[in-house]
Each structure stands twice: as C-alpha cells, then as structure tokens.
C-alpha cells in the first residue's frame, strides 16, 4: 500500500487590499489579447497536454453546434440572445483563452431562464450531443435563476466534439439551485469548459461535475458572491481510464462576508496513462469576514501507470474567518480493507467492488438528483468491469 499525501499550501497573507487577484485565476477580460496562446509552461497550463487539445487554442472560427435536446419544465425558457445582451445580463466574463475564444466565436449566447419564485420539482435537462471529434464547437450559455426560485439543471454531454464552452450561472437572492454537468463523451472528445457562478444574497448553489468520458476534459468551476450569506457546494466525481486526461480546476472567491464554500472532489484512475488533475483554489478577500471554507480531493489509484495530481491552495487576506481548511490524498487500494472483507469470505473481486463503491458513496449521495445517483452507481459498476474486476477470479 502506498499513500501519498499532498497537502501543499501557499498562503499569501500580504496581498494588497484593492485589486487583489488570485495568481491562479486572473480577472476576466473580453479582450482576446489578454489571453495569449499558452506555451504549456504557465502555472495554469502546466498539467495539461496542449497537443491533445487538437488546435482548440488556435481559435479558428466555427459555426458548428452540438445537437441540443431539452427537457424544460413549465415556466422555464431557453432563448438565443446576442453577445451584448449576455454581457448586459451580468455574464461572468472569460478568464482564460478557451473561454475568451468561446465568447468570440459562439455567435451570441443561449439564455436559460428560471423566473423568480418558480419552484421546480422536475429537473431542467439539456442533452448536448456531438457528432464527431472533427467538429470544432464554441458554446456560450447563461443560466439565470430568479430570486427565491428552486431549480435543478442537468447538462449532459455525449458523443464527440472539440468543444469549448463558457457558462455563467447567476443565482438570484434566496434562490436554491443544483447544477450538474455530466461528461459522458466518447473516447476521442476534447472538452474545455468554464462554469462560473455568482451567488446571490442568502442563496445556495450546488455544482457537480461528473467526468467519465473524453480523451481530454478540462473544466473550471468558479464561484463568487454577489452579497453576504451565500453558500456554495462544489462537488465532483471522475473516473479516468487508460490514456484519459481529466482536469478539474476549482476557484472559490470569497468576496463577500459570511459566505460559505465547500468543495469535495473524488476520483478513481485505472489503466496506463490515466491522468487526473485537481486544482482547488480559495481566495478569502479582506472584506470576507466570517466566512467558512473547506476543500477536499481524494483519489483512488486502481492500477499501475496512472497519475493523480492534486493541489489545494488557499490565499487568505483576513484573519476574521470562521474556518478554512483543506485535505488532499491519493491512495491505492488499501490492503487492510481488502483483507478485512476477504477474511469474512467475500471474494477479492467483490471486496474491490465494495471498496470502490464505498469510496464514491458519500459523494454520490450528496448529488441530490435521484435519477443521476442511480446512473452514477451503474457507471461506477461499468468502469469497474473494465479493469478492477476483469483480471480477478470470482
């Protein structure tokens, strides 16, 4: 059993009060020249195999689109708006090159609107399907959740594409929203995504990223607060197979007092060249007194030849906080756990299955969307069948 604990920390306590910016998350800009083509040596790009982006960063225009199929409960609308309208709605601007390119080339944006006070029992589901990894697709979406509304939004990615998308979620005061993005791509898809969330006064949001498919997936989930009292839970689950690169970058920008963020990402890796990256960044600004934040990443390495990079990061400018913490651990199958289960007669195969399901269980139960939870259990099972359960006799 090998266990490597990475709990690296960089606390930059002496940042200036005004115009503070996180070194990992530069301020947004609609000016493309602010987002030069990366070389791969930049801190924010160094984990990503740029070659496998297959030209996405070149920024070639393209009018191709994913196929959208939607399930919109009554009262919810999906419309097309111009880029200027998107900005006017309060879109959270692009803060890296892929998202800036998506703005530049998407040709307007889609607006998903959940009006104020609407309480939905059924989820809003957006099925986004790509036909081929040869298609270059730019996407731009604004999700607006009105004040005191309650909604669940599922974005389900399937098929294949070279896809870069910028998504903004504006959560009205007192609203409660559950956003889930599922990356169930075919093997050759490339997906760069930036989700940014602005949490209204006393609003609560849960954002879950689930990544199984694709050759390369790199997603940002950023959260900031429009007013005090907001609460954000950022969850993630990923399963990287042979040769897959799955990267999740989190940013909680505590820019208002008495706000909370809680990050939990769990991943499993199996097969030669499976690579996962998790970067968790929290910035606690001077004004953000009385906030609470916790971020955690756990990885389970199921075979040789995998790599899990995990870097939690905390930048604190005020001491007046309720709590801030982080944890990160990457471990192999625990021999003691397997021995314990097997000593009760449970076969090696079944023991491994129990341990992996157990590893993901608490996270899956937090997702809060029953149909998705069931599907995740089945997907974990299917992933296990590929490797962990394959070579072992029952």
């Amino acid at each position, binding site marked *: 059993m090998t266990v490597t604990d990475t709990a690296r920390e960089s606390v930059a306590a002496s940042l200036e009060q005004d115009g503070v910016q996180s070194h990992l998350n530069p301020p947004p800009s609609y000016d493309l020249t602010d987002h030069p083509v990366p070389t791969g040596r930049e801190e924010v790009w160094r984990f990503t195999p740029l070659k496998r982006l297959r030209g996405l960063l070149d920024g070639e225009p393209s009018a191709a689109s994913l196929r959208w199929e939607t399930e919109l409960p009554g009262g919810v609308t999906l419309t097309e708006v111009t880029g200027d309208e998107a900005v006017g709605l309060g879109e959270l601007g692009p803060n890296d090159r892929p998202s800036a390119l998506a703005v530049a080339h998407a040709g307007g944006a889609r607006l998903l609107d959940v009006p104020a006070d609407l309480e939905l029992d059924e989820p809003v589901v957006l099925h986004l399907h790509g036909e081929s990894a040869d298609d270059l697709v730019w996407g731009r979406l604004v999700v607006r959740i009105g004040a005191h509304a309650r909604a669940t939004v599922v974005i389900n990615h399937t098929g294949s594409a070279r896809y870069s998308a910028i998504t903004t979620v504006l959560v009205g005061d007192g609203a409660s929203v559950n956003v889930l993005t599922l990356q169930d791509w075919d093997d050759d898809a490339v997906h760069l995504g930036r989700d940014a969330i602005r949490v209204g006064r006393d609003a609560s949001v849960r954002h879950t990223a689930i990544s199984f498919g694709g050759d390369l997936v790199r997603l940002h989930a950023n959260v900031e607060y429009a007013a005090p009292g907001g609460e954000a839970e950022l969850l993630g689950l990923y399963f990287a197979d042979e040769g897959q690169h799955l990267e999740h970058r989190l940013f909680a920008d505590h820019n208002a007092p008495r706000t909370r963020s809680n990050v939990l990402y769990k991943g499993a890796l199996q097969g030669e060249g499976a690579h996962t990256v998790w970067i968790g960044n929290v910035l606690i600004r001077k004004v953000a007194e009385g906030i609470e934040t916790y971020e955690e990443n756990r990885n389970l390495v199921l075979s040789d030849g995998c790599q899990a990079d995990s870097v939690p990061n905390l930048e604190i400018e005020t001491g007046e906080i309720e709590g801030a913490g982080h944890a990160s651990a990457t471990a192999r199958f625990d021999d003691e756990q397997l021995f314990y289960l*097997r*000593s009760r*007669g449970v076969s*090696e195969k079944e*023991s491994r299955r*129990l341990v992996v399901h*157990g590893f*993901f269980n*608490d996270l899956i139960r937090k997702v809060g969307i029953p149909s998705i939870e069931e599907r995740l259990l089945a997907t974990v099972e299917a992933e296990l069948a590929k490797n962990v359960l394959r070579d072992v006799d029952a």
Partner: protein
Amino acid sequence: MSELVIQDLQVSVDTEDGPKEILKGVTLTIKDGETHAIMGPNGSGKSTLAYSVAGHPKYTVTGGSVTLGGEDVLAMSVDERARAGLFLAMQYPVEVPGVSVANFLRTAKTAIDGEAPKLRTWVKDVNGVLGNLNLDPTFAQRSVNEGFSGGEKKRHEIAQLELLDPKVAILDETDSGLDIDALKIVSEGVNRFRAQEGKGVLLITHYTRILRYIQPDYVHVFVDGRVAEQGGPELADQLEAEGYDKYVKAAAARA
C-alpha cells in the same frame, strides 16, 4: 469434523532489514468443541499467529502446516479460508468507508453460504444479534467500523461471529478496551456461539477476567514466537499471580 491443527508453524515478516522471524515453530491443536486461551507478553507473536492462520498477506509462512478438518488451510486464499469455516475477530478492526454494516453483513453471509440469505429471516436475525450485543438498530446503516468506539468495534466483530457462524473462531484480544458490562455482553455472544455442537475457539487475551466468563479447556503461554507452556484453566491464575517472567527468561536463555 472441524479440528484446527497447527504444526510447527514458522512465520516471518518483511522488514527494511530483510525478513524477520516471528513465529518459531508453533504447534497447537483445537479439537471440535474445545476452547483454548493463549496468553503472552506484548510482541510475542499472538496476533501474528492469528493473522497467519487467516492468511494476511503481510506474513510469510516459511515452514509448518495448518489444517482445518484435514484440509490444507495454507493452500487457500484469504476468503477461501473464511468460507472453509475460519473466523478471525481482529484486535484492530478495519474501517471501510462508505460500506454500510448492513450491506457488509449481507455480502459476507451470501459469500459464506454460497447463496443470499432469505430476506425476511435475515433482517430479523441481524436485528436480533445487534440487539443482543446492545448495538442500536441504526448501527446497521453506519459505515463499517468508521467512527465506532473501541467497544463498538469489538461488539461488531462478535455480531459477525454469530451471524457468519464459522467452525473455528480466533478472537484476538476481543476483551481489550471493554468496560465490565461490554465484556459480559461480548462473552455471552461468544458463549452462544460455543454452545453449539463442535465449535472451536482460540481466545487470545492478556487478562484472566474474560476467562471467568468464557471458561477455557486449555491455556497456552506464548513467548517469543512459541508455546512455552500449556495447562488447564489453573495456569491462567498462576500467570496472573506470577507474570511471564520465568518463561521470558527461559526463552532468553534459549536464544
């Protein structure tokens, strides 16, 4: 027939300085229906004996044999040993996050019996056993050993003993860390198991107090990887009065 026969068992563990011999030839036979107690100083190899019989991968058997009802235990995998009728209540039960006690027990029972237990009677059985061990019914929904108190972990081991119903049970310091009430409750569980026809028990302990509740047929003194002395229940009282000193000195003189 479920006689457990351990013959001249030699076991080593891998250390940074190469293999280290821990068991130096252990011979012990537990016949049907017998209860044997093993007592010995810290580090003498008692847990090593228990783990080696159960098949823990950390230990390498370098000599000797172990058979259960004539079957070669050392040739079996860990789970095969359990299915053959061996059970080890561990000194330090392992946490398995995210796996509920209920799921764990049902999976283990299914594996041991080769078929899933009948749902209706099973739920009753589990609740009955948990109740007897003074474990709350909500206990079944918790993750295996996660956040359990020391005493709860031990009672959970005995719950498994009763539900899985092996032929031979090895109890490694099941009494350690138990208060007097919990000790009684756990002992009653072991005694319910023993009351059945032909069940063997190997009870590893530091204290004679559990032997007042679970009367052994034989007591073995374990020192430096060997059985240094054996006798009846009176040997336990003698150890309590005199300690292991003379056995430790004798072992040191041998070495």
